């Protein structure tokens, strides 16, 4: 088994983790009655993936402790580069 690092619990078995999506996507702004989001923009947000070959930044959850964090890894070698808790960096910065 590969070990993934949970920022809260430390290294744990990969089966305890859930891949939640790519980092860096910003939900279209729907606040206010003026906000009109085109079908194309919704599609980009919902479906389009970077799916990078190499260094990737992803949102993962450690299921036992429910920690949501930013995982950086290599999508070819599967090497883990680092994990950052969203509590430490703030959601905005981590997803930038």
């Amino acid at each position: 088994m590969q070990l993934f690092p949970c920022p809260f619990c430390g290294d744990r078995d990969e089966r305890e983790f859930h891949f939640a999506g790519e980092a860096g996507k910003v939900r279209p702004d729907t606040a206010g009655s003026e906000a009109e989001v085109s079908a194309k923009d919704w599609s980009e947000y919902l479906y389009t993936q970077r799916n990078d070959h190499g260094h990737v930044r992803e949102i993962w959850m450690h299921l036992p402790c429910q920690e949501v964090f930013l995982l950086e890894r290599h999508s070819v070698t599967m090497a883990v580069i680092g994990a950052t808790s969203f509590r430490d960096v703030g959601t905005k910065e981590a997803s930038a």
Partner: protein
Amino acid sequence: MTKTYSAFNLLREGLRGQKGWGPAWRSPKPRATYDVIIIGGGGHGLATAYYLVKNHGVTNVAVIEKGWLGGGNTGRNTTVIRSNYYYPESTALYDLSVKLYEGLSRELNYNVMFSQRGMVVTAHSEPEMELAARNVNAMRLNGADADLLDVDQVKKLAPILNFSPDARFPIHGAVWQGRAGTGRHDAVAWGYARAADALGVDIIQNCEVTDVITEGGRCVGVATTQGEIRGGAVGAAVAGHSSVLAKLAGYTLPITSFALQAFVSEPMKPVIDTVAFCPPYGTYFSQSDKGGLVIGGGLDRVPSYGQRGNMPIQEAVLGGLVEMAPALAKVKLLRHWAGIVDVTPDSSPIIGPSGVEGLYVNCGWGTGGFKAIPAGGTLFAHILATGTHHDISRPFDPDRFITGRLIDEGAASGIAH
């Protein structure tokens, strides 16, 4: 040099020490310009080239392959061919493929060993039996063959399965598709390659696309490790690396890449003569003509481009196999591998314009690309030759992610991709 395969030629070459066979396809230097360039020499790319000549008379065609024929996903699957889907759009697509496979060995003069041994998809509770009945009805309404089997009928077809009432998931019945089966995956690539080559298609191996050339927003060719090649239309059939090519060309795709693992056991005497899939165990298997069990399961849990699998899915698939057929618990594995599949949000493929003018895509087949090779080739050739959709490929256009008309087979037929 012997060009065609026949019983007479086999006998003659057998007596002459097999010295008269020629290469099955040429290895030409790329020309500067082609009418159509196909990126990717897998099953879909080679089939597309073949049907471009055969159905549309487009003879000036190149297939560019970064590795060797049969080295990618075409040689990394579990060879199952079937059309047991739910939606009419899917059945039209996959059943076209089964029909083309039925005549393929004769058409290509190459034995692709399509063996219509049928497929059972088991149901393990009364509610599952109701869903199985719904699926059988849908398949029949859409024109595919399907039968609902009770437990005794399943027992007759695949007695090696676990029929114990104490099984973790006791078998109640199954969906049966008799026209489904298995094929020889390399032979499909080699057969199409040989037939396309005979029709004048240039198959260029060990030639990697390093850039996509656009002029005035239109794709006019590709830069490769063997120089620049220009084309009137460019088609990308590069499953596994669809997003990598998209990045080169500047379009986007709704694709996530995952490894899909498969296993082959040591050869043994015949134990099963159909394809058996038990969804709750996440495992399916068949027996190859050489006697090895060919075993497959679900996707890996981690997005990946590494062509090797990870342990959790190995455990799930092989543990599932032992639950599914306890008699196989002591069988030894011979080989294990993984291919990279490009998975879309609705588990249906993407066929159509890429968003860059002159460049078209055939991708997103997920775990089901092999069974779709003849249909994918037919439809993609139609698009590349005419610039417009075939009726069967229209619903699979990438615009469905904007209009919302998804064909969600992952939810509908419960397939593992």
